Each structure stands twice: as structure tokens, then as C-alpha cells.
């Protein structure tokens, strides 16, 4: 058992945060999945969107190019729907019929990228591929990449929930009503306590799953660990960001206040991660449908 991050990992997080605040894209380090989780959690704290998860997924799919590659694994009738950061991306990675991933040029004249109005801040677009040029074919384990990227996206949600908790705590300590800080009210304290429980358990689940992948467990175990982490992170982080809103009160719904950024961010991750019920479906199958006694 070792539940600490290394100094190098702490540094990775602070370096990524500095670069992000300076308007750069933090590099995708060639380290462990835990390293990526560390960075994603830190960037998740920011009240503006990052493309980190999209970049991680592209890298895990084997893409090495410069610029930004959006990912749309499922394309129907020549249209890739719901592509995160589609308008910013240079290329698009789509699943080909043969189970490969194909890189498509988004900068040419063929594809049409149409932004969609969503409640997320992650630049969703529909992309009509048209006569887009194929740039490369990538050979990779798509399911493995998706499971690992989902762990990284859960870490982003944990960052958002943690930042929302910190902001809510700062608010209730400084905001006075009836002559005393809101934080002296037991109902307020207990809501904060529940948020800390949620954030702590979500974070630990995500790091545990990353550790399973890093230790080279077989792919069934990695996918199951990802399901456990995502199932709990989605619900707990969503609840924590909603609680932060409640504690922030009326001013919290100002567009300039950061709370709705975290609230949106976690919600927008939900369909990408697969909602919690889908993950529980996989967990139930492992517990109920195998003859052998399950274990994790």
C-alpha cells in the first residue's frame, strides 16, 4: 500500500497548471496512466475547458501528430456526431469498418464542421465527412484506449468537483448572515462534509483504476476497474458540483461566477464516460453472470 503521489507527479501537476494558465496546451507526458490522471485532475480544477482528455484519447489511439486530433469513434451516414473540440481540431480520428482508426484531415475543403449548442464547454460539433482526405491508418486496441481515456476524464471531473468544494468552502467561511459565517451552521457543515466524502472517494477510485492499468493487469481487469471508477466518479462529482452551487447561493448563478463551469463540465463528461448505469451493468455482469466467484 502506498497512497501518496511522488514529488515528480506533484511537479507534473503544477507544471501543467502553469502552462495551461499561460494559454499553452500542457504536453502529454510519456509516463504512466497515473501521471496523466494527475495532470487531468489538476486541469479539471480550472474554470475553463481544456482539450486534455481529447489529446490523451488520441495519443492512446496511437496518434502522434502535431496540432489537435478530435476523436469520433462512431460515424453514421457519413456524419460524426457530438465531436468534442471539433472546431479547433486539425484532424479527426474515426473508427473504420475493419476495427482500425483512420485519421481524417479536417482542414481541407471536404468536411463540414457544425458546432452544436450543448450545456458543456467542450466545443461539441457535428462533422459531415464528405470527401475528406484520409491521412493515416492507426493500428491500436480501441477498447483499451477508450477505457484508459475514460479514467483520465473521470480525473478531470474529480478536479472540477474538488475545485467546486474549495470554492464553496471559501464562500461559506467568508459569507456572513445573521451576524456569523454561514460555515457555522451545522446544515452547511454537513453538506460540506458530504462533498469531501464524495470528492475523496471519487479521487481514490480513479487513482486505483489508473494503478490497475499501470501495473499491467489484463484488459478485463482494466475495463472492470475503469467501470468501478467511472460509475462512482460520475455520480459523486456531479453531486459535489451541484452542492457547491447550493452553498454558493444566489451569486453563484452569475455567469461570471465559476460554479456553473464545474457543474457543466462534469455533466458534459457523463455521456462520454458512459453513464453510471452502463458501468454498473458491466459490474453486475462480472458479479452475477460468471460461474466463478468474482473478485476485484
Amino acid at each position: 500500500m502506498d497512497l501518496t503521489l511522488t514529488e515528480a507527479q506533484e511537479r507534473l501537476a503544477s507544471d501543467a497548471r502553469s502552462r495551461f494558465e499561460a494559454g499553452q496546451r500542457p504536453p502529454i507526458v510519456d509516463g504512466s496512466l497515473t501521471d496523466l490522471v494527475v495532470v487531468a485532475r489538476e486541469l479539471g480544477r480550472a474554470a475553463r475547458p481544456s482539450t486534455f482528455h481529447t489529446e490523451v484519447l488520441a495519443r492512446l489511439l496511437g496518434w502522434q501528430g502535431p496540432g489537435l486530433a478530435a476523436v469520433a469513434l462512431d460515424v453514421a451516414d457519413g456524419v460524426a456526431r457530438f465531436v468534442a473540440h471539433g472546431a479547433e481540431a486539425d484532424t479527426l480520428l474515426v473508427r473504420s469498418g475493419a476495427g482500425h482508426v483512420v485519421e481524417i484531415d479536417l482542414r481541407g475543403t471536404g468536411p463540414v464542421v457544425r458546432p452544436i449548442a450543448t450545456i458543456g464547454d467542450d466545443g461539441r460539433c457535428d462533422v459531415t465527412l464528405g470527401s475528406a482526405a484520409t491521412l493515416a491508418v492507426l493500428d491500436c486496441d480501441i477498447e483499451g484506449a477508450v477505457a484508459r481515456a475514460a479514467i483520465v476524464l473521470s480525473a478531470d471531473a474529480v478536479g472540477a468537483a474538488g475545485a467546486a468544494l474549495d470554492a464553496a468552502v471559501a464562500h461559506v467561511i467568508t459569507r456572513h448572515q445573521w451576524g456569523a459565517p454561514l460555515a457555522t451552521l451545522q446544515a452547511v457543515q454537513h453538506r460540506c462534509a458530504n462533498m469531501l466524502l464524495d470528492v475523496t472517494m471519487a479521487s481514490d477510485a480513479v487513482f486505483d483504476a489508473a494503478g490497475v492499468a499501470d501495473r499491467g493487469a489484463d484488459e478485463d481487469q482494466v475495463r472492470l476497474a475503469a467501470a468501478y471508477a467511472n460509475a462512482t466518479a460520475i455520480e459523486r462529482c456531479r453531486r459535489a458540483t451541484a452542492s457547491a452551487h447550493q452553498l454558493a447561493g444566489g451569486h453563484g448563478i452569475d455567469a461570471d461566477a465559476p460554479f456553473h463551469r464545474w457543474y457543466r463540465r462534469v455533466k458534459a463528461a457523463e455521456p462520454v464516460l458512459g453513464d453510471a448505469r452502463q458501468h454498473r451493468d458491466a459490474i453486475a455482469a462480472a458479479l452475477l453472470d460468471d460461474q466463478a466467484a468474482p473478485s476485484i
Partner: protein
Amino acid sequence: MDFRFDPGIETFRAEVRAFLADALAGADRHADSLDLTGLAESYERDLHRRAGARGWLDLDGVRKAVFDFEAARCDAPLIDTAMTLAGHAVATYGSPAQRGDLLPRMATGEVEMCIAYTEDAAGSDLSAIAALASRDGDGWVLSGHKVLVTGAHKADWCCTVARTRFDVPARQGMTMFLIDMRTPGVEIVRRPTMNGWTLDDVGFNDVYLGPEAVLGEPGAGWAQLTAAAAAERSSMFWLGNARHVLDLLVALVRTGTRDGTPLADDPIARDTVARFAVALADAERLARRALWSDITGQDDPALPAMAKVTATELLQDLAQAATELAGPAGLIWSPLFTSDRPMHGAGDGRLAWEYLERVHGTISVGANELQRDTIAQRGLGLPRGR
């Protein structure tokens, strides 16, 4: 980050499981449903001595947590041992004579202890304790009435606390005592709880105590009590209970039917099972984080409270969900051990027992409301409440 225990710990766990499986075979023949453990005192004492001979009553850190988990998982009467209840207080505050006399025998299972702090008017607020120990020559005369005491009827010694001065605030006027239960004036009344077993009232009727009965410093009882309570138990044993009930829930859904349809084909039953598997995995990680904080000396004061809240509420939720899925069979009750189990009970009557049993977890050892105060104030730096 790695939440797994070291391989040596898992070897130890396997050893404990093998021992307990062997030791508890036939335990139903020694049932005593009036005891919290569900087992007869003679059987429990024998098991304590056998575990003590292996050094297992005097574990600490990860081994203690793993031992508690495995004992709870199979209902072994090894949770409320003398060392667990009072070992910290005796070892930390005991005089050389008290330590030398009691600790070795507590560790071998020869001496059983109870802790008697709570009173009718002093539950969560122990500063309201009214038991009074007055000076009498070198010694003391103790009068008072303690309630909700676990296992006083079978204890050899009692660790208790009383006011020794009323001219100073309660926190400076309390003293802990170690009392031989055979001392004249100690009176025990067993009271049945809602789940069939008994807790004890302990009356101290002008009990004369020599100066050697003081545990620690006169007047330091409050500070000692606070530290001792924090060290009383890890949350790991609750998770052993939770693992047991989750296993029963999985078995119920794998084999049960409702209105002629297998529960294993019911999407809601399946989702329920997965939901609790996820919640238990979360709670186990949290308990390990609390353990890690303890063994590395970080001693984050919020983590034990977080682990306690999570484990005890998980147990209540599990009992509710499992009995609901079981339908009428979820109402059929059986004590933990019996050679006469009722027919058709879900989990052999265990799930209904759970539903009643898990009420007190969120109340005892610091009500969860107080634990959440601790989490907010010590974990997040919020000010004291109003």
C-alpha cells in the same frame, strides 16, 4: 498509488481465514442469542485464548485492520476484545503495575474487559458525566450508573470514568479508573436490545477503590478518554460485515426469484448489486486511506470520521436494499448462531437481523452527526458550529 496490501499481509489474511473457518465450524452448537456475539461466553473465551496464543489479540496497524475485517466477515466473536476496547487506554495511561498485571493477560485472552463511559444523561456529551468518585483516605468511593455497556456481564475488569472534582470545568475534573468487576458494590443489569442481545447497565454503589485503581492522572480523564476513543477501533470491521452482506445479496440475486422471474434477469436487482459493489469498493479504499494516514503518522483527524460515516451508512443501505429485494423472506429473522434456523429466511434469516442490527452503527462510537462536524471542522477547516 497502490491500494493493495503487501503480499505478506495477504498471506496473513489467508492464515486468519483458515483459522477462523476451522474455529467456527460447529459454532451453532454454542449459540447464545442474548450475547452481542451470538455465542456463549465459554466458547468466546476459548476462542480468545486460541487467537491470543497466536498473538492475534495484540496486533496493530494493517494486520489489526485485516484481522478485524476477516473476523467480522465470518461473525467471529473477536471484535470487542479486551485489547481492542481498552488496550490503548491501559497501555498509554496505565501504571507499571496496571500494565504488567493486565496487558499480558488481555493479550492472551485471559482477561476480558468492558468500557463503561456513557450515562443516561451523558451520551454524545461526555462532559455531562455525573458518576462521582470522592476521596476516601488514599482511595476513592465511586457512585454512579453507567448504561449501554458492551459485555459487562462477562468482563473481568471495567474501564470507566467519573467526576472527581466539581469545582473545575468537567474537562479538568474527570478521572479514569480500572475496576475489578468482583469489587463489592458493582452491580450489573442486562437489558435486551431491539435485536435480541443485551447491553448492560453497570451500577457503582459506593464502590471502594484503592489508589491503584486510578488510570492515568487524576483530573486528566477527559483528555485520556478522547484519545482512547479515537483509538478504539478501525472502521475495517464494519467493512467485513458489509462484505458478508454483499456476498449474501449477490447470492440472493444469483439464485432467487421474484414473481416467478429470476432476480438475475431483473435489471433493477442487477443495478442494485452493482451499486453496492461500487459503494463497498469506495468504502474499502477510504478505510485504507484512513489506515495509511494512521500508520504513516499523518493522523488526518477527518479520515477516521469519514470512514466511520461511510461504513455505517453503507451497512444500513445494504440491509434495506437486500431485505427489499428479498420480499417477505427478508422479514424472517434469525439470530447469528442457532441450530434451529427458521425456514425460508433470506440469507438464512441474516438479512432481517441485519436490518435491525445496523440501526445502532450510525449512533454508537460518536453519532454520525458529530462525525460530520469533525469532517467539516477538522477536514475542511470550518469554524465550530453555533
